[in-house]
């Protein structure tokens, strides 16, 4: 024992070289068995270089934008003089647009709270972890539930005259239904058929957020009436 090793440790992320292990996967975790030897690369330089490139491109873009466009600054705040319309920053204009249709409690409190809660609970539903195509299980039952849901949502939207949400909802329902009527396995319809429930709900949510925010930002003028972006309002 003179302290010298007469062997070398072999370290490898290559599953082919190191002894294989057996993994027991409990039913609870919805793990896809990964390909045995996922290719690993060193963080330095592979990842770090990419991060630096992304960061620098971001700085370049921000700099150009900041050189070309000036941040707005209007007249000094004047509590006596309410602009018409008074608008919140753009990321709240979807909500402000809802305020136009629903009572303030609904638009300002209930709907945003529900949206945040809905986002939080996504990973805690088994159906969102499995992510099977919407039509995979009982097709008839799915159809009934779908029509009932879309029907009741539409009734509410018609009652409050929220056509800005009604139209996207109905257009989207057509897409949801496409795989039910056409049994094609390939192409767009086949792809749609594989979309899970959570995918449809999230996409519906995102489309509505985008549409409402765009309307609130670009198409609303004095008294929150419909105004084209090219009509001067101020």
């Amino acid at each position: 024992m003179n302290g010298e090793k007469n062997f070398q440790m072999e370290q490898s992320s290559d599953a082919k070289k190191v002894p294989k292990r057996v993994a027991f996967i409990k039913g609870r975790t919805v793990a896809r068995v990964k390909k045995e030897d996922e290719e690993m690369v060193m963080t330095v330089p592979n990842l770090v270089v990419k991060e630096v490139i992304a960061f620098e491109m971001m700085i370049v873009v921000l700099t150009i934008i900041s050189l070309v466009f000036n941040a707005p600054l209007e007249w000094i705040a004047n509590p006596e003089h309410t602009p018409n319309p008074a608008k919140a920053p753009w990321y709240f204009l979807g909500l402000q647009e809802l305020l136009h249709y629903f009572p303030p409690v609904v638009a300002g409190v209930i709907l945003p709270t529900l949206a945040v809660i809905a986002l939080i609970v996504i990973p805690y539903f088994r159906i969102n972890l499995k992510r099977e195509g919407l039509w995979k299980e009982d097709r008839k039952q799915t159809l009934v539930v779908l029509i009932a849901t879309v029907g009741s949502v539409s009734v509410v939207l018609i009652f409050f005259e929220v056509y800005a949400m009604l139209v996207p909802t109905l257009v989207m329902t057509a897409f949801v239904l496409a795989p039910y009527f056409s049994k094609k396995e390939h192409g767009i319809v086949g792809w749609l058929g594989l979309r899970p429930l959570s995918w449809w709900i999230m996409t519906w949510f995102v489309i509505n957020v985008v549409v409402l925010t765009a309307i609130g930002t670009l198409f609303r003028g004095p008294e929150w009436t419909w105004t084209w972006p090219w009509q001067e309002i101020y």
Partner: protein
Amino acid sequence: MKHVFDKLFESRVWRSIFRHGLPTSNRTRAEAVFYNFFLHVHPTKVRKRSIRYTYTWGLGGLSVGLFIVLTVTGALLMLYYRPSVQQAYWDMKDLQFVVSSGQFLRNMHRWAAHAMVAVVFLHMLRVFYTSSYRPPKEFNWVIGVFLLVITVLLSYTGYLLPWDQLSFWGISVGTNMVRAMPCGFGEKISFLLLGGNIVGENALIRFYVLHCFIIPVVAMVLMGIHFWRVRKDGGV
């Protein structure tokens, strides 16, 4: 020349700062990551698949990048800005017309703030559409949702600070929405937020403290947990 650098990198002073040699072998490349405070958020090796630009679109990283830009430009803006009704607006005017590059600084802070709201939202969509919220990452998704809310609040509290018509009425509209909360909660919360019933001096100083201290600190703590969990759960 190369000789000089080699000497430098071998010197005791250099080695006391960076404890490893140049990242020329896999060993030193690994050391470059785990001996470095900033890089040690990363593992020494990453999956090739998970660092493709087209998988994450770099959106989480860009959110961090924007936060850094906002911290730097924000600190510089704080040098010129006084949060009082008498001065706030005129300080903005000074930034535009007196301070060198003041307008540019303001623009950078403003556009980065808008971009961050959008980028964080897009990052959430990327995580959703790649189903990256699956166990064991459920709770990191939840932290993410809080981060989204925090990002919006950060942007929103900053919106009042220029004290122009846009900010004043933007905040008035928003706090009126808060008032709609039932059982008198709305009144209470909006009073707490504004330090009164109207958007005035108290509201400005409250929004200033929230914007420059409280919310950024909360955001940094949440981000720390977020990145730590990304790493523990086998991400980058």
